[in-house]
C-alpha cells in the first residue's frame, strides 16, 4: 500500500465496489454518531482522504483496549478503517519485535514528522521510570519524544485519558494521564474501560474524513459519543422517573427491568454512548444485562467507593458520626446549659431589690 494512495483508491484496489463503499460510508456515519444525511459528505471526504501514519504506544495498561478494538476476527468496517491507516507501530499487533520494531517506530516518526497520529493506551508512571519501560526507554520519555512530532494524540482508554486503575489509591507508580504530561498538542480522550470499539475507530474515521479532531467536551472527549449521560439515554429512565427501583439483583424489580440506581448505577454521572451504540455489535450494554453502570469513562471512577452503592449516598459512615455527635452534643450542651444556669443564678443572687425610690433616673 502506497502512502500517497487515497482511501478511495485503497478500497477500490481491495475490490470494494461503489455500492460497498456506500455501505461502508453509511456504517461509518453511524459509527461516528453522525446523522445518515452526512453519508454523501463522508463519502466525498473519504474518497480523497490520505492514509495517515499511526503510532500506537502502550504503557501501563492491560491490553483490554486493544482487545476491544481487535476483538473481531474477521474484516469489519472498523477493520477496514484500520486497514486504511498505516499502523506503523503497535507492539502488541505488529509482526516485528525487538530492535526492528523500535526502528520502525523511529522511522515512521521521522518520515511523518508533524503528521502522524499518536495513539496511547495505558497511563504513565512518574514515580520510578523503571516501573514501565519499552526497549529500555521509560514510558515518559517515549511519550514525550513521540508527542513532539504528532499531529494529534488520541488517549484510548481511561488509563491514558485519566490515569485509570494504575492511578487508583495509593497510586504506587505515580501514574498520570497523557494530558497531565503533554500540553502542547491536541489531545482526544476516548475513555472507557475499555472504550466502545466503534468510538475508537469513529474518532480515527473522523480524523480521516475531515482531517480535524471532533468537537470535544471539557474532558477532551468527543461530544458525539460523550455528549449525553448514560442516564439520559437509558431505556430504563422511565422507571427512575416513576420511582421504580430494583432493590437487589434478584427481586421483582430486577426481574421487571426497573431502574438500577439503588444498586449503585453511575449512569446519571457517566457520559458515554453505551446506551445507544451498545456493545457486541449492538447487542446490549451493562444496564440492559441487569448490571449497574460503573461509570468507567469518568475520571476517578476507580476511587469512587463501592460500585454497588448509590451515588447519592455518603461514602463515610454517617450514622456513627451522628451518634457520636449526639453524645458529644449532649455533653457539651449540658455543660453550656449548666454555665447558662450558673450565670442566670448569679444574676438572681446579685439581684438588688427595686423599690419605688429606684425607679426615677437622675436627670
Amino acid at each position, binding site marked *: 500500500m502506497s502512502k500517497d494512495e487515497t482511501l478511495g483508491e485503497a478500497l477500490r484496489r481491495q475490490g470494494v465496489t461503489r455500492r460497498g463503499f456506500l455501505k461502508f460510508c453509511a456504517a461509518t456515519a453511524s459509527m461516528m454518531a453522525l446523522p445518515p444525511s452526512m453519508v454523501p459528505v463522508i463519502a466525498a471526504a473519504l474518497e480523497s482522504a490520505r492514509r495517515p501514519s499511526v503510532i500506537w504506544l502502550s504503557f501501563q495498561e492491560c491490553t483490554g483496549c486493544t482487545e476491544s478494538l481487535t476483538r473481531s476476527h474477521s474484516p469489519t468496517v472498523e477493520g477496514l478503517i484500520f486497514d486504511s491507516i498505516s499502523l506503523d507501530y503497535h507492539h502488541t499487533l505488529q509482526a516485528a519485535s525487538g530492535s526492528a520494531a523500535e526502528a520502525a517506530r523511529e522511522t515512521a516518526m521521522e518520515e511523518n514528522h508533524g503528521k502522524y497520529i499518536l495513539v496511547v493506551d495505558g497511563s504513565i508512571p512518574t514515580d520510578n521510570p523503571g516501573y514501565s519501560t519499552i526497549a529500555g526507554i521509560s514510558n515518559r520519555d517515549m511519550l514525550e519524544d513521540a508527542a513532539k512530532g504528532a499531529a494529534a494524540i488520541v488517549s484510548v482508554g481511561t488509563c491514558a485519558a485519566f490515569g485509570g486503575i494504575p492511578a487508583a489509591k495509593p497510586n504506587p507508580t505515580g501514574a498520570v494521564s497523557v494530558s497531565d504530561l503533554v500540553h502542547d498538542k491536541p489531545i482526544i480522550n476516548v475513555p472507557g474501560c475499555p472504550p466502545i470499539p466503534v468510538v475508537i475507530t469513529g474518532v480515527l474515521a473522523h480524523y480521516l474524513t475531515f482531517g480535524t479532531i471532533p468537537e470535544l467536551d471539557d474532558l477532551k472527549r468527543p461530544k458525539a459519543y460523550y455528549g449525553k449521560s448514560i442516564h439520559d439515554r437509558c431505556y430504563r429512565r422511565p422507571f427512575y422517573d416513576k420511582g421504580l427501583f430494583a432493590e437487589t439483583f434478584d427481586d421483582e424489580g430486577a426481574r421487571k427491568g426497573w431502574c438500577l440506581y439503588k444498586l449503585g448505577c453511575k449512569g446519571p454521572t457517566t457520559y458515554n454512548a453505551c446506551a445507544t451504540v451498545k456493545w457486541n455489535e449492538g447487542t446490549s450494554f451493562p444496564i440492559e444485562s441487569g448490571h449497574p453502570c460503573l461509570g468507567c469513562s469518568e475520571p476517578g471512577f476507580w476511587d469512587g467507593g463501592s460500585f454497588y452503592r448509590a451515588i447519592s449516598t455518603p461514602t463515610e459512615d454517617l450514622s456513627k458520626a451522628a451518634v457520636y455527635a449526639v453524645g458529644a452534643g449532649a455533653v457539651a450542651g449540658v455543660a453550656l446549659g449548666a454555665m447558662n444556669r450558673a450565670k442566670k443564678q448569679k444574676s438572681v443572687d446579685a439581684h438588688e431589690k427595686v423599690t*419605688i425610690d429606684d425607679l426615677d433616673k437622675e436627670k
Partner: protein
Amino acid sequence: MSGPSLQKGLAAFKEQIDAPVAAFFNSCMHCGMCADACLFYTETKDPTRTPIYKLEPLRKVWQQEYTFWGRSMKALGMSKPVTDEELGQWEELVYDSCTLCGRCSMVCPVGNDIAYMIRKMREGMAAAGHAPEGLIGATKRAVTIGSPMGVKLPALQAQIRHIEEDTGLEIPLDREGVDYMCLLSSMEIMNFPEYTAALAKIFHQAGVTWTISSEAFEATNSGIQIGVSEIAAELVQRIVDAAEKLKVKAVISPECGHAYMAIRWEGPNLVGKPFDFKVVHILEVLDELREQGRLKTTGKEMQRLTYHDPCQIARRGGVLEQPRRLLDMIADDFVEMPEAGVMNWCCGAGGGVSSNERADDLRLKVFNRKKAQLDAVQAEGLVSACANCRIHLEEGLEEYHMDLPVLSLTETIAEHLAEDKS
C-alpha cells in the same frame, strides 16, 4: 439601693430570660405577622412598633449571654453590647406601644408568646430607669397611698355611704368569715360607684356573704404594669394578708383586666406560695350564681349589644364563656364583633398605657382599630367588664364622634335583677 442603672437592667434581663424566652427568640423568622396582629402597628404603620422588635435589647442579651455563638462573638469583642441609650429608645416601644394584650402571641406562627416576653423585659427596663414617668408616679402612689389614683380609705367610705343610701343595702366592710372579699379598682371607686352598688344588689338577691377590706380594697397592681416584681409582690401581699385576716373563702377580682392577671395568675408566683383562698373574677362568680339559679333577671335590653373582651380577662385570663352566658340572660339582640373572643382587639389602653400620659395621643390613635371592629356590627350598646377599658372606650368613642353607650356587664345585670326574692 443606689437608683436605677444599666447594670441592674441587664442583670434583670439575664434573670428574666428562661427556657420559653430562649425558645421564642430561637424560633423567630422575622416574618412580620405579629405586626399585623398589633394595633399599634396596624394603626400607625410604623415598623418599629412590630411586636418582636420591641424586644430587641432583650434578644441581644439572650444571644450574647446564653447562646454559644453569641458568647463566642462577645468573647472576641465582636458584638455590640446593649447600651443605656438603646434602652432609652426602647422605652416608648415597650411601655407606650404595648398593652400586653397578647394578640401577637396568638398569631405568631412559631408560637412565640411575645406579651410574656414584654412583661419580662419591663423588669429590666424599670430597673434601668427607663419606665415612663406616669407609670412611676402611679406605682409610687400605689405603694405609698394604696392606690395608683391616690384613692384613700376615707374616699371609699364616703362612696360606700352614698351607695348604702341609694340602695338601702349594706356594704359590709372588714367582715370576717364571709364567702367573698371584693376588690375594687380605683376607677370603680371614683368613676363607677354603680359597680359596688351592683355587687350589693346581686349578692343580696343571691344570698351571698361578702365584704370589702379597709386594708386592701385596691385591686390594681402598678408593679406588674411597670415591671417590678418586688413592688407587685408587696401589693399582692396586702391582699393576701387581708384575705387571710378576714378568713374569706375567695377573693373577687373586679371588672378590671390587669387586676385579674395580677391577683389570679401572677399573685401566687409573686409572693412565692399558693394562696389559701380562691381568686375568682366577678364574671365567674355571676356565672356560677346563674348556674345555681341564684341569679334571676327580668326583662331584656332591647338595643343591639356587643361585648368587648378585655384582653387580660379573656385572651390572657381565660374568662370567655361566662360573659356570653350572662349576656344571654339580659340581651335580646346580641352580636359578636368580628374576631371577638381570644382574637379580640385591645382597646389600646391596657398594660399601663392609660397611666402613661405620654401615650395619650397614641392610644387614641390606635383606638381606630376598635372603631373598625365596632363599625362592622353597628351595635347600639357596648358591654365590657373592665373599668380601664370602659374609660378608654368612652374616650375613644368621643374622639371618633361615635354615639355608643359603654356598659358594665355587672351593672347591667344588676339593673335587670328580678325584684321578688324567694
